[in-house]
């Protein structure tokens, strides 16, 4: 099996960045010449045209090797100028290539080999997002599997179902549930003869991870947790007995949760406490377990503040936040995101949770968070993002289109007084429903990131990642 398979979310989209640089420089030249009043000679025009053509060809060649199994093929050198573009092309992850039949075939083959059913897409997609998968909650993956699941461990099947139905949602919660399921798997694992635990267990986990990926695309927190587990398993020495190894692994998992989630939450809460002053009006969006923890903790320690909970359809997660905060005793206001610019003049701070922090400083969070950050910036309200370091991700993304998740489009349909207007939306050929899950907020809109390593600006995220990699 190719070693680079699995959940490496390490694709760097540098290729497109570089070509953009080249065209930019050439564009600058052209503009400059225009500004200087020089008309472009025929030769220069021809040259430009030729270069453009070659670049287009180059791009096609880039995509070609990217889809092959051995992805390290260098770009064929076309010209003297293209020699600068010789670089290694990294593979794009499969889950954002849903419109590429070659990739789909490859994925189908892999799943067939692992005996996992393939989940089929549902409904017509908006063309801009046709490279992402869109599944229906009414067609769970278990429909195509045998009922006492023999290939996948039962706790993984339970987990996959809970993910796809949204019962476990939120990056911390998903990560903890995943680690819990892995603990069960490890507990029930028995090393077959002539195999080593360190290698066999990792191979056992691969189909489970594919299964979970089919149920719902993995989050960054889950990806990092899986990387950690795999590393720990591979580091199990072959001398120790199986029982000991299993206990060690389970303890590693417990330690990971304790350190990266619990203690991190406590540290973040402590830092955040300094930032919350008496009389503050704090705006939160959606339901972030970390932000809820911070607010409840600050309230318990005696800070006097009130909270404005902003919510958005179709998930309406803000209701959960509202319920939990009011249960604790905080005074809350509840608005929908459409009213945010009306509420912002009263707000003193905005606290946002994050799904992941990307390597270029962008914050990936629930769709709508970037809107809140944008409006807050317009009103000069500070935006603080709270995120544990284990959610830091080496991916680079500048827009919300390239890598996102499409939720069930039927969630957008509303039934009022027994009538569902959009019930047969699929019959209308020109209608598409789009239910995005995530969006990315640029670092210019984020004033501070509170992590367990301290309070850092958004641009220091790559430093943290570099330090983490050095440690490991």
């Amino acid at each position, binding site marked *: 099996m190719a070693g680079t398979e699995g959940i490496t979310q390490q694709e760097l989209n540098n290729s497109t960045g570089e070509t953009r640089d080249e065209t930019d420089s050439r564009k600058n030249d052209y503009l400059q010449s225009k500004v200087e009043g020089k008309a472009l000679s025929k030769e220069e025009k021809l040259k430009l045209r030729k270069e453009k053509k070659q670049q287009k060809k180059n791009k096609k060649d880039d995509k070609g090797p990217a889809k092959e199994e051995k992805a390290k093929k260098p770009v064929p050198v076309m010209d003297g100028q293209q020699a600068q573009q010789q670089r290694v092309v990294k593979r794009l992850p499969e889950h954002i290539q849903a419109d590429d039949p070659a990739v789909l075939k490859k994925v189908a083959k892999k799943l067939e080999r692992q005996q996992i059913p393939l989940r089929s897409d549902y409904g017509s997609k908006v063309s801009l997002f046709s490279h992402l998968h869109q599944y229906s909650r009414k067609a*769970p993956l278990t429909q195509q599997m045998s009922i006492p699941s023999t290939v996948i461990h039962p706790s993984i099947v339970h987990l996959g179902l809970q993910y796809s139905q949204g019962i476990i949602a939120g990056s911390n919660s998903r990560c903890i549930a995943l680690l819990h399921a892995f603990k069960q798997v490890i507990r*029930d694992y028995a090393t077959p003869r002539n195999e080593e635990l360190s290698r066999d267990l990792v191979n056992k986990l691969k189909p489970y991870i594919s299964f979970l990926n089919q149920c719902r695309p993995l989050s960054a927190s889950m990806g990092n947790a899986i990387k950690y587990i795999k590393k720990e398993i591979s580091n199990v020495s072959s001398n120790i007995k199986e029982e000991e190894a299993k206990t060690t692994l389970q303890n590693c998992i417990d330690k990971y949760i304790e350190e990266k989630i619990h203690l991190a939450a406590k540290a973040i809460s402590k830092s955040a406490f300094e930032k919350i002053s008496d009389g503050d009006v704090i705006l939160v969006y959606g339901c972030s377990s970390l932000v809820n923890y911070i607010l409840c903790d600050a309230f318990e320690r005696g800070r006097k503040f009130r909270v404005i909970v902003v919510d958005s359809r179709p998930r309406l997660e803000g209701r959960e936040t509202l319920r939990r905060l009011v249960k604790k005793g905080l005074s809350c206001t509840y608005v929908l995101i459409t009213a945010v610019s009306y509420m912002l003049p009263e707000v003193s701070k905005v606290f946002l949770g994050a799904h992941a922090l990307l390597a270029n400083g962008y914050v990936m969070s629930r769709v709508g968070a970037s809107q809140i950050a944008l409006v807050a910036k317009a009103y000069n309200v500070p935006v603080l993002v709270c995120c544990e370091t284990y959610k830091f991700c080496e991916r680079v993304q500048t827009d919300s289109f390239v890598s996102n998740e499409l939720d069930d489009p039927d969630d957008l349909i509303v039934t009022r007084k027994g009538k569902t207007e959009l019930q047969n939306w699929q019959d209308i050929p020109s209608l598409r429903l789009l239910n995005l899950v995530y969006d990315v907020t640029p670092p210019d809109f984020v004033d501070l990131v509170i992590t367990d390593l301290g309070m850092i600006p958004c641009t220091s995220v790559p430093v943290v990642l570099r330090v983490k990699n050095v440690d490991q």
Partner: protein
Amino acid sequence: MLLLILMLSVMELQAVVMAAGGGSRMMDLTYSMPKPLLPVGNKPLIWYPLNLLEKIGFEEVIVITTKEVHKQMNIDTKMKLEMVCIQEDADMGTANALRHIQQKIKTDILVVSCDLITDVALHEVVDLFRAHDATLSMLMSKTHEFTETVPGQKGKKKTGEQRDFVGVDSSGKRLLFMANEADLDEELVIKKSIMRKHPRMHIKTGLVDAHLYCLKKSVVDFLADNKSITSIRGELIPYLVRKQFSASTNSQKTKDDSEKNQKKTDLKTPDIHISSKDEDLLDLAREKSCWNDHRGDMSDAYHGGKLRCYVHIMEDGMCYRVNTLAAYIEANRLAPKVFSEEFPIHPTAEISEQSMVGADSIIGAACHVSEKSSIKRSTIGASSCIKEKVKITNSIIMNGVTIEEGCNIQGSVICNQAVISRGADIKYCLVGSGQCIEAEGSCFTMGPLINCNIPFLLSVAGCPGEAGSYQLHKALEAAVN
């Protein structure tokens, strides 16, 4: 080889088929043949639940049955059937049967009754069980009106059976309330605790309980401790449904409390085989998740209750429990349409060219159908012999029956080894096993003819308490005339 490596040592669900019941509501059929072996569409009744389990992927099934059934059972299936025989006259309740096999049960179970004929997508029921970590998940279906005339009954059947009141929440999945009309006096009493948690409850009465239950292993262990519960449907299920809202299961538990409570034999936190530390982890994951199954009040998901019961109500599709004569006839009519994979006419049957066999009839193996006979909308069992000029409509003929020439059979059920002599005219009757109707005899809508040979009037007829013994008397009179 690769397949072996991917198989698990951990089983998720064990299937248990209850085939020891006596079929007390259709004694006319079951006095001579045990219920699991009654032919429906020329397959024994127990084939249908076993087929359902085999289709979804079960490989091992525990079948609880009597020795008699075990001897006669001959099911062609790829699954490994583990037969557990219990005494026939012990009259064990279904819960007692589960208690009997408690040692074999290592994980959660799926209990199916042998008389269930359905084409439900079973993953709907099991997914509720898995996703919500439920203690009980069951299947119900909307009742269908029986359209066929049942032999032995005058006019339309009254709902003599007691209705079931089933209360579900607004999503239609969570089971809140279950009571049978027989247990209620004049009022339906709903506890306030249920209404506080679920202000909107839909109460349905037109539902058929399919007797298909997913139960957690802790329930089986609980049954082993609580010997007072004898029947799953009658006692265990209502108990579990009530227990969801009982105060003791819902109080905020600290570790000490849960230890104290576990000393009692009450069913508390369903603690399966996971250690308490892992249970904490799962609770933590749920706590941090931004999901709630209800809204409008201040409680957590599931109102903090650990015991949850779910139901999947089938809207369309087939779901029959063959426990009455009417259901048996209806099932015979419809089951073959859904389940027959082979030819409706068995290849070894000999059918003469001049006979007419309708498209919706089923002929069993090694049958003989002679010329000028017409068979419409009927089922003929194996090794039966139909002579010339016989007209069979809307009937069920079981195995080894001989029907002499010129007979006219309509809307009837003829059981095994019966002999219908020449020219008999049988309408809407049930002829018992091994009986003989005399030549030129005519029987008409009077009811089951059991244990009597018409010409000889050897009334061994008195199977005491048999349904229709009065009608039997009348039928004898009519037949003699």
